[in-house]
């Protein structure tokens, strides 16, 4: 049976920049629009990834619907999608085989966890009780219904590469987040709510062999939002509460590198 990688051949790519004698570990950063801040942080030198041979593979979120998994690789389900992803990859990759990497960092990738924190905050405001067991169920259901989480889990199952997952950040404070009707009291969130959710996500992600990267604490404001300092440029004007700036991207990269340094690091 042909591998996914051979089924969707890569375009001719540039030779690796590292010397042949000392190959650097290979890091794939896979993401949707949320990974732009990471790429910018890297490009602007806010964080050094010199110890790694880095490749980006991603696209805006809509195309994620056209991705599948085959033979150890995330594969586009059609040529158009393959072209789109290849366009933004340094090597023109039309698919992402985990075997080509020592670590894969998923960024954004449509794994939405904000509402879980909002639920915890609202439950506190309502006088409800959100047990650890129920929170675990919410997390498990969130993982189970996320296609990209499935990719991460299967990459981890493949056993060779370290898999990290940084989900979309919390909404930027000061802008409507779209959940106001359901969760009018997210301001009730406390640091302990967030810590409890992160702990649950980290624990259950580990069961799947994936290292979950909680949003760095210093980027959070008001318990359940991202501090405006990390909002994308002109976010107040554009109303973009989702995307973040390179400073946030560097925080994600620093967190990822810290984890990678613990094992398999350069």
């Amino acid at each position: 049976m042909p591998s996914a990688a051979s089924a969707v051949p890569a375009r001719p790519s540039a030779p690796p920049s590292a010397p042949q004698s000392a190959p650097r570990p290979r890091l794939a950063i896979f993401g949707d629009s949320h990974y732009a801040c990471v790429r910018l942080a890297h490009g602007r030198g806010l964080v050094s990834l010199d110890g790694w041979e880095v490749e980006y593979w991603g696209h805006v979120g809509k195309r994620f619907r056209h991705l599948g998994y085959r033979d150890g690789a995330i594969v586009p389900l059609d040529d158009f999608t393959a072209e789109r992803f290849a366009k933004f990859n340094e090597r023109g990759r039309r698919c992402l085989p985990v075997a080509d990497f020592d670590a894969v960092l998923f960024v954004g990738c449509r794994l939405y966890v904000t509402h879980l924190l909002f639920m915890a905050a609202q439950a506190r405001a309502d006088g409800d009780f959100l047990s650890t067991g129920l929170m675990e169920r919410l997390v498990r259901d969130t993982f189970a219904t996320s296609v990209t989480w499935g990719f991460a889990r299967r990459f981890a199952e493949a056993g060779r590469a370290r898999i990290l997952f940084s989900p979309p950040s919390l909404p930027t404070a000061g802008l409507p987040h779209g959940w106001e009707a359901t969760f009018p009291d997210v301001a009730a969130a406390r640091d302990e709510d967030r810590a409890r959710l992160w702990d649950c996500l980290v624990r259950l992600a580990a069961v799947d062999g994936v290292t979950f990267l909680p949003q760095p604490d210093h980027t959070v404001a008001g318990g359940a939002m991202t501090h405006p300092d990390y909002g994308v440029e002109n976010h107040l004007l554009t109303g973009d509460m989702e995307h973040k700036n390179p400073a946030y991207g560097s925080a994600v990269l620093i967190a990822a590198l810290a984890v990678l340094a613990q094992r398999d690091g350069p």
Partner: protein
Amino acid sequence: MSHPYESLPADRFWRTAVAERSPFEISGLWTPKFEIGKRSRIVTAGSCFAQHFSRALVVRGYKWLDCEPGPRALTPEQRRDYHYGTFSFRTGNIYTPRMLRQWLEWAFGGSEPPPEVWEVDGRFFDPFRPAVEPGGFVSPDELSASRAVTLAAIRAAVQKANVLVFTLGLTESWQSRATGHEYAICPGTAAGRFDPEVHQFFNHDHRTLMQDMSVALRILFRANRGLRVLLTVSPVPLTATASGRHVLLASSHSKALLRVVAGQLAQDHAAVDYFPSYEIITHPAFRGMFFAPNMRSVTQTGVDFVMANFFRDQSAAHPQPVRAPVAARETEGGPATDETEAEIRCEEEILNAFSR
């Protein structure tokens, strides 16, 4: 008038009220003491069969109070699995009058729940509602915090309600030898570990049932002087008996006692009524047609027939503008409306797993 029977209406005579009628034409079984209308705030508790009431009420646009709806935005499956929206508060099934009394005493300050918890593989289960948290709590403290929310919900439900519908289910129970507290289900079945030195079987008799219900009613009416209580008896036979008798006889014994207690309380208290769902399902006049082939589960047709009687008799006694049933919908804070019997949460069912 030469004797009292001469002027009685047709429904007082077996021939005209039952024998000459199709079972579906038997009517007027209930003359409601008080109105339960669209504006009545209704809370439900009790054994599995009580869940049918909340569902039927919600579907028809009645005000069923869910005082412990759980965190917002749970999916219907998550709500169901964690017993939110099953009853008006998250106690799970309350099978016996003693359990009702216990919950009310804990909620209204008569006594404190004992510190007993059941530990299974590092998780902790509430002996008085072991099924509400499928994987257990992470600590006894978390268990207590969750129970405190339920006790607050019981207080709110009783204080806000116009009507409490309580379905009596069982007389057989398991208790702590040390404290006399009654468990929701036999230790060692759904959770916990059975220890004959610690746990004892207790089959309530008429005296203890009346005693417990009387105390429960006193607490209820003290908390809410305007409250009305509608009692029903679950028509669902016992899953299993520890009485030493055949399960059919044990069922008969239990249900007869509960039926007598419900009837007597309705006679004794102006604010207590009895709705005969038990008779509608189990009486030979209805030929057992509302039971599933296992002769235990009540079919949806049976449930619908019971509830149709409920609304018709209410309407006859207290006419209201007629409104067609609204489509079942899953509302936040409303009960699960999947009307299959399998969806009814019945912890007692766990005993089936032990049958040989």
